[in-house]
């Protein structure tokens, strides 16, 4: 205590206190405010760089179909080759690219989910293109991790919502199903929580769009919880047979069940008893 009192009496102490107070306030301010002034400067430089990267990636990988300004392209007969991306938002780009659908190989047909091409295996590149497209005309943004956290969703509500909104295409357990016109709803066993959210938010291809009025963010998180928990839960009754319903059961019954029984019947009737001497 004594030393501190002595120290306080020094001539520069007043300045020191003011300085410390200022610095603390600054640090605290910086910590609480989303973008500190000092950080802003260096961030905007980085952002400009990211944007440039995004634009470059877009020009190299996407512009051949979507046009140099993402305005979409048409063939000589005026039919659309690829749609405009103005206003589709980062969510749509993130979904399409991170599921490997874009860049498309074969425009016109339904794009299957596949491993993303080399450049887009780096999440930073995906984020950059998404941000670039977002900058062109806004649109739904990529959901925050908290919004898609399956742990936080109400799974019972999610099940109900899934059965009324999604099961008619994706099947009760998310195993996928056929749609009219050669289209299909893919199985949901690999989609990440973020992709599930984005799929609902942007309605890719033949899938309807579920905006935040049809399904609130809370409802979306519930659905994510249901999908994730359902695909992770083991099958208590043995092999799940693809979880596609009674067709697989019928096939198993006829092949495995009847197969085993008929084999046994053949064996049992082919065995002749040893000759008896009586």
């Amino acid at each position, binding site marked *: 205590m004594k030393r501190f009192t002595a120290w306080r009496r020094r001539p520069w102490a007043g300045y020191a206190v003011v300085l410390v107070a200022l610095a603390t306030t600054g640090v605290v301010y910086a910590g609480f405010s989303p973008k500190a002034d000092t950080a802003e400067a260096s961030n905007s430089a980085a952002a400009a760089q990211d944007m440039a990267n995004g634009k470059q990636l877009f020009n190299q990988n996407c512009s051949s179909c979507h046009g140099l300004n993402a305005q979409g392209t048409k063939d000589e007969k005026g039919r659309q080759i690829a749609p405009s991306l103005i206003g589709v938002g980062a969510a749509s780009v993130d979904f399409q690219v991170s599921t490997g659908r874009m860049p498309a190989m074969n425009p016109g047909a339904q794009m299957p989910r596949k491993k993303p091409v080399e450049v887009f295996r780096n999440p930073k590149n995906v984020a950059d293109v998404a941000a670039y497209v977002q900058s062109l005309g806004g649109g739904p943004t990529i959901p925050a991790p908290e919004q898609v956290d399956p742990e936080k969703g109400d799974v019972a509500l999610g099940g109900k919502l899934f059965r009324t909104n999604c*099961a008619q295409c994706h099947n009760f357990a998310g195993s996928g199903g056929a749609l009219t016109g050669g289209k299909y709803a893919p199985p949901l066993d690999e989609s990440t929580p973020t992709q599930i959210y984005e799929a609902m938010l942007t309605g890719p291809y033949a899938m309807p769009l579920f905006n935040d009025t049809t399904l609130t963010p809370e409802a979306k998180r519930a659905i994510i919880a249901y999908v994730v928990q359902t695909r992770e839960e083991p099958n208590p009754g043995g092999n799940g047979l693809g979880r596609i319903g009674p067709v697989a059961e019928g096939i198993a019954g006829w092949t495995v069940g009847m197969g085993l*029984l008929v084999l046994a019947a053949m064996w049992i009737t082919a065995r002749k008893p040893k000759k008896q001497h009586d």
Partner: protein
Amino acid sequence: MSDVQAPKAVDAPLTFLDDRLGSSTFLKRNMKKAFPDHWSFMLGEIALFSFVILLLTGTFLTLWFKPSMLEVVYDGSYTKLNGVKMSEAYSSTLHITFDVRGGLLMRQIHHWAAILFMAAIMAHMLRVFFTGAYRKPRELNWLIGIGLFTLGMLEGLFGYSLPDDLLSGTGLRILQGVAQSIPVVGTYLYLFLFGGEFPGESIIPRLFTIHVLLIPGIMLALIVAHLMIMWHQKHTQMPTKGRTNQNVVGYPFYPLYMAKQGAYFLYIFGVLALLATFAQINPIWLFGPYDPSAISAGSQPDFYMGALEGALRLMPNWETNVLGHTLSWNVMIPALVPLGIIFTGAALFPFIERWATGDQRSHHINDRPRNAPVRTATGVAVVTFYGLLWLAGGNDVIAERFHVSLFATTWFFRFAVLLGPFLAFMITKRICLGLQRSDAATMAHGYESGVIKMMPSGEFIEVHLEAPEEQAAVILSKEEGKSLPAARDDNGIPAPGSRNPLGHLRLRLNRFWNVDSIPIEAGHGNGHGNGHGDGEHAAVEDGERATAIGSGSGTGDRS
């Protein structure tokens, strides 16, 4: 006649019972009844034993299942559904699945047994059909069999509906649509069945009573009748050496056949337990409770209802409006016509065939399918028709798994269902005749031995050997169809009964039945063919021994 004596341990109690019940030698005689052996004769046993297992496991399920549509909020071991509103039927099925010890296993055995039961009935009926075993005197049992099959379909449909999950509710909705589509009485019928508007409160309790009491009771009675008639008439047998229309060649019921049957029952139970342990069936917890506003891709019924589902999917959307009433052809035709034709046709077939062929004899030796080309071809045509409808019932799964368009599958099946049966008929008939021809050749020139001989002239020939006795007996089992007297004899006098249109039709059918047949004649006697191998020789002897045992009761009754 008996040269096999039952062991003392069995003989004594039998004698005891026979003495008390005044049945003289009833039991002893019946214990020695001969049962012919052929693997396809076991198909009926599969159905019988699965039925027994259905009764046992079903009774277990009734101990916990609550047939009630009362709404409850689930709170149990399957946490994913905690807090969800559902019917008591659904929640009690969840309870059986997750909280009753062995409950899931029992549910799965019950359901797999239902699948195997229906599969076995189908296979059994096909065996009976293609071997002509339904012919006189067994027409009654054929009719009982068709009744059992129909009841089995209903029983399965109702059982499937009991847990009140999403898929079973979808199935009930279809049932409701089908009932409603019946002209005039449809709406009343449906309101009566459901006790009001769909789904209502009463349908599950009603289906429950029908499922556990009414239909099993009727089925049990029919099965008993089926078996008693079979016992009395004795089994048919496959044609081979030493088997005639007058005897039964096989093993005595006791001890051999009974031991085999006991083992087979245990084996069936084993297979069902294996399936139920390793293959999940009807995971109602994944389907979720029934919710009229929800539906799932891949909503299918069990396979035995698949043909009905397929018919509904293929039918174009036709409706007409008559005096303010909508006639839903789009539901009525597919729901009633295809299966109606198949079942009615199957029931009438023995009588149509008898009428057309004029064959009034009793048959105890089965036909080889090739020797009845019209019957075999008809059967294959029906199987094709049914099979295509069945596949069409799973067209969404086909489209999804094989990446073809759903629309394309629908159109493909529409045409295939109409054309396929005719093609199948023609192809099958050709194949049958081809096989008859090769039989005739075997009888005339022997079979190709695969031994090539060089003649002194340098010519190579393949040595043909005379068919061994066994084979010859099988081939010669063919019976030639009997032609009805021609419409007019040589003098132009019309044959009796052929003057009316019906008689005319009969003659034409008769000609259709008999026109293609390859006559088969015994070759140059069959003195040599025997004794090609010791194994074979032993089998023949065994057969003969069994004849002796079997005919003890066989000959007496059959003549």
